[in-house]
């Protein structure tokens, strides 16, 4: 395989977990709630999927359970942020550490459980297309789900009545309430749905392709997802492209090393984060006008009185 092909397949394989989390974050932020705890949802999803798969022997049941676990954790975030009006950023971090703690505690029993990952399922016909087939259609089935999830997410957000209400909740909650819509309920659904997608992202890591569960195995991918959402400006297709960009940055280092190229590996390891900062610098300011109204409130710094 050529280097470009190895990196491209690695980008999709490694970017999919980020993509699911970023899609979840997109839905949540479109409804006006930043969820920094999405990494916690990923961890809950990764562990629960792995544990349930180990207990039931069924990977798909595991995947469903992982999604539910991710959703449940984000429910905690939703409660404090929406009912108690706590600070979204601080609460998100607390929820992240809650997820990390819970999964460390209950995960210890499953470190040695033996679950065989789904592995790659070649899609008939499509997988034999040169290049595109190898990159996109020789992956694990959770990755194929993401190909459906991205357009579905876009359609729901921008073409359905539901999406209009959801985005309205993110722009001006009080207007929605005035017109008699349950704004808070809509936000709840968005945050929990976002957490469920995060959980699926975690499950892709544990039962989709590595076949392992270890404490903190997401290693910051949830935060990368939050950054992706910011620079992709909460647009599903851009989120997908951004996630693959990070996946490529992650896949580049091993691919180069395995070929014996001598490149500063510490610089390569830093690449995903440098990409984040660069993209935020380049796109960040220009897009500031398009941030949903309720989100702007979160980032506003109130003057000291």
């Amino acid at each position, binding site marked *: *395989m050529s280097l470009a092909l*190895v990196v491209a397949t*690695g980008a999709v*394989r*490694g970017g999919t*977990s980020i993509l699911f989390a970023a899609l979840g974050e997109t839905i949540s932020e479109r409804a006006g709630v930043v969820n920094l705890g999405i990494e916690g949802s990923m961890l809950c999803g990764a562990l629960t999927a792995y544990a349930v798969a180990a207990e039931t022997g069924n990977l798909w049941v595991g995947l469903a359970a992982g999604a539910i676990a991710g959703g449940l954790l984000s429910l905690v975030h939703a409660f404090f942020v929406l009912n108690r*009006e*706590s*600070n*979204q*950023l*601080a609460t998100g971090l607390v929820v992240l550490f809650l997820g990390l703690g819970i999964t*460390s505690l209950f995960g*210890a029993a499953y*470190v*040695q459980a*033996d679950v*065989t*990952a789904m*592995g790659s399922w070649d899609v008939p016909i499509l997988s034999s297309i040169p290049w595109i087939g190898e990159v996109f259609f020789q992956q694990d089935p959770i990755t194929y789900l993401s190909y459906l999830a991205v357009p579905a997410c876009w359609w729901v957000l921008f073409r359905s009545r539901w999406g209009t209400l959801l985005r309205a909740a993110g722009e001006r909650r009080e207007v929605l309430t005035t017109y008699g819509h349950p704004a808070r309920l809509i936000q709840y659904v968005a945050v929990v749905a976002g957490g469920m997608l995060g959980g699926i992202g975690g499950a892709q*890591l*544990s039962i989709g*392709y*590595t*076949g*392992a569960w*270890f*404490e903190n*195995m997401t*290693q910051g*991918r949830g935060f990368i997802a939050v950054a992706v959402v910011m620079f992709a400006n909460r647009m599903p297709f851009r989120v997908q492209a951004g996630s693959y960009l990070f996946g490529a940055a*992650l*896949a580049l*280092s*091993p*691919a180069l*090393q*395995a*070929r*014996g190229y*001598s490149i*500063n*590996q*510490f610089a390569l*390891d830093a690449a995903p984060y440098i990409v984040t900062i660069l993209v935020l610098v380049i796109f960040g300011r220009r897009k500031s006008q398009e941030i949903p109204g309720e989100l702007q*409130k*979160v980032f*506003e*710094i*109130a003057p*000291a*009185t």
Partner: protein
Amino acid sequence: MKTRRLAPALAAVVLAMSLLAACSSNDSTASASASSEPPGKDSEKVGFIFVGPKDDFGYNQAAYEGSQAVAKAFPDMEVLTAENVPEDDSATRVMESMIKKGAKVIFATSYGHLDPAIKVAEAHPDVVVVQQGNVINGEPIDNMGTFFGTVYEPVYLAGIAAGKATKSNKLGYVYAFPIPQTIDNIDAFQLGAASVNPQAQTYVVNTSNWCDPAKQAEAAKSLLDEGVDVITQHQDCTSTVIKATEAGGAMTVGYHADASSLAPKGWITGSEWDWKDLYTDIVKTAVAGEFVGSKYNANYRVGLKTGENPFIQSEYGPSVTDETKAQIEAAKEAISKEDGSPFKGPVIAQDGSVLVEDGVVPDYATIEGFTVFVKGVVGDIPKS
């Protein structure tokens, strides 16, 4: 409105943290006023800290099993263990709290636990602190020591098995960080392979993390794509690489633990830890009050030559031929002799310079001081 609430909350957190810090530092000064008893004498408790989970199919699991052997050997002794202790000041806090509970013997079992361990040893002259895997520069203080096995010996032997098994002459090595232990292992693996197969080369990929399964899977994939057909590793959690290797139809050389169950087809051999006897003896020495000046009150290293290496070769897999086994036996005998070593000269470095002169048998300190790969390793040591 919302942001204003954050400030007092943050202030409270910071305040609470600084209070905690103040408390723990008070504790250490208080207990530092120690008696003249020899360190560790008559200790009723012993503490172990691990950097990872106790069942990681790897390094930490082996250390944990060692701690349980201590519990078995001393039925009256309470064994305190702490998993997932980071290699920073949190390690200091965990050790301090174990000492507060009455432990007078502490095992800090990760390479990066050395600095916190030294700090704790200095604050508590009455407590024996031993560290696993790292080296103290100069003479250790009276109540401190490091210990380890010559890990590269079984890795060298496994390298022979890999060199015989490979068909593409490309071996893969997934590692975390270029610490001395890892560099020695990679060099020994390549030297072992080259000793029976001069065409064999070792391709190295680092993950910059002791346990990031997704990165490990990616590393294994990259190596497999490159045509590597035997993969070994130096990671804390090992199952991901082994599963990926097995799924890719390649062969596995294990590290840390016997994971042959994960690779029924491709398992060749590996290296694993057995800390039972060494841990037990260290505790025995300390509890008897004989730690100061003992062999453990130093940078203690054991290997094939001393006959008590805690790092042993794993069982062979089904594909290993009798011829290979005989070759490994012969090599084992050769490196067990006084004038034998996997690094017996001449050893040529990657850049073609001479690393060990012809006929020279380097001592342990020299081997741990190697900062280059040997000839036949493909890839660079990351430099900042």
